């Protein structure tokens, strides 16, 4: 079971995850090529996934797989294993992102066919 974490643990991994999010955001907002924007979206979501997985870490913990001699000591295992819930959440989220990336890339192919360019600032004929 998880308890409420007090304060903010300045572990290095959280900083890296947020840097990935910032990098992805920069690519998504400021690059002038649709494929690069899609890559930025992928990096952004990867940063969020990294953040989510590292939330489940428990200092001195073991992986959440019952094997070997943990079979006989299940309560001890439960006290020492890392949290498996964020891992399941991230697995689901990765699959959702595959769908978004596939859709975005096929839209980019169509955009290239219609407009002849992948520059989002030129794909602006709908302005009114």
């Amino acid at each position, binding site marked *: 079971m998880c308890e409420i974490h007090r304060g903010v643990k300045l572990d290095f991994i959280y900083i890296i995850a947020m840097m990935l999010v910032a990098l992805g955001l920069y690519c998504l907002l400021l690059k002038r090529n649709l494929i690069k924007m899609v890559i930025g979206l992928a990096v952004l*979501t990867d940063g*969020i996934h990294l953040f989510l997985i590292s939330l489940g870490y428990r200092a001195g913990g073991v992986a959440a797989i019952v094997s070997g001699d943990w079979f006989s000591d299940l309560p001890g295992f439960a006290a020492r294993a890392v949290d498996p819930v964020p891992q399941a*959440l991230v697995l689901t989220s990765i699959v959702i992102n595959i769908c*978004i990336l596939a859709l975005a890339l096929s839209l980019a192919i169509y955009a290239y066919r*219609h407009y002849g360019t992948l520059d989002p600032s030129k794909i602006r*004929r709908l302005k009114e």
Partner: protein
Amino acid sequence: MIPHAPILAILIPLFAAFLMPVVGIFARWKGLKRAREWFAIAAVLVEFAIVVSMLPAVWGGQVLVYQLGGWQPPWGINLAIDGLNLLVALIVAGIGTLVMIYSFVYMERDTGLDQYYTLFLLILAGMMGVALTGDIFNLYVFFEIMCISSYALVAFRRNWQSIEASIKYMIVSSLGTSFILLGVALLYGLAGSLNIADLAQKLGPVASSAVIVPLALFVTGFGIKIAMVPLHMWLPDAYQAAPSAVAALFSGATATVGIYAMMRVVYTLFGALAIGIMFATLGLVTMVLGAFMALVQRDLKRLLAYSCISQIGYILLGIGLGTTLGIQGGLFHLFNNAIYKTMLFMIVGAIIYRVGTSNMDELGGLWKNMPVTGTLFVVGALAISGVPPFNGFASKWTIYVAGIEAGQPVFTIIALITSALTLAYFLKALNSIFLGQRPAHLKDVKETPRSMLLPIILLAVLCVVFGVLPQLGIDLVRPAQEALMNSSGYISAVLGGA
């Protein structure tokens, strides 16, 4: 109530969506012409019956809690249905049924209809999932299902407008849903649970400086979906480029679900009734901006899209005021907005189906050709502007009175002015399309096909009914309003007994 109704309400469209490619292949192999359309209509009718069957139990005050897999909350995912969920589920099921009947004829000239019906059923399943679930990550997953299906539906016709609109929509909305995921991650780190009722309980004693970031992320993420100013830029392009049946579904059902998700997270999970004033102010800005932008549009679908933004502003104003009357007005306006917005988009679709364009400069004098459609457009225009015998007046009046009651007469005055602007641009649209000189090439335009007229007439009848008997509407939304203001009932029902 049909046993297992909550989960069946999500499963029926999902199962039908999985089955649809097989049905399509089978229909082509055997040569049965309309098999997939009839299959889809049967699925949504069964869905509507299931949702209606849950009405007596929930309106009697009971919160239906359904545990998936038999696992107790907070360790398992559960579906929790109180008055608010059921109102949204009713709107989604009803609008879904009517738009499906409408697309029977409207979409028959398009190719790739297998995929259209699959996506339609998927987006319906996603919306029902968001409306009925009691777990925040499950809400995110179903929300993503709804969003991805909507990106594909906007790009359905694959011409340059649809592709451009869908790219813009997709980039902005993916950013929004990533923010929602980050908010869920932060909440899990703060409280260690993913159940909405459990989180509401555990977040009580946490300091407010820690919950500000998740709250801001959620409001931004859902705000992008409901097109709250300043996050509304994607909506006009997306609604203009999508097929009209899809735009009708979006404006009626998807916007409703987005507002529900925002309310559920902000009011029940965070218990942050205090930020209602921010909603009210942003709602006011949204309302005015939508109305002003709609005044200058030349294309009917784009005008309706900006009008959509304006109506969402009304709903946010009502809900943001936070008083009983305010929330009742906001929810009643949510219900009415679904009715007349869907009706107006269907009418535009009928005009495009018969004439081929929605540009108001090229239309005119269609009253002689399409008298029934014209009358229905008048009903819709008067309803949305808040003219007395129609439902828009009842809900807007409630919001005006709530504004004065809450001590903010300025809000009421601005809302009144915006209603007048709404009437102005709709009269302008009416004049451009149905009255005036008819161009020569429109001489032989026929009346709308009957099966497309049927849902529109039904919605118009509902407009009149709820306008003449406003008490019926208030009774309809009272369970939802009580559920919204009384979150402890929800929490104890989910965690305590069932």
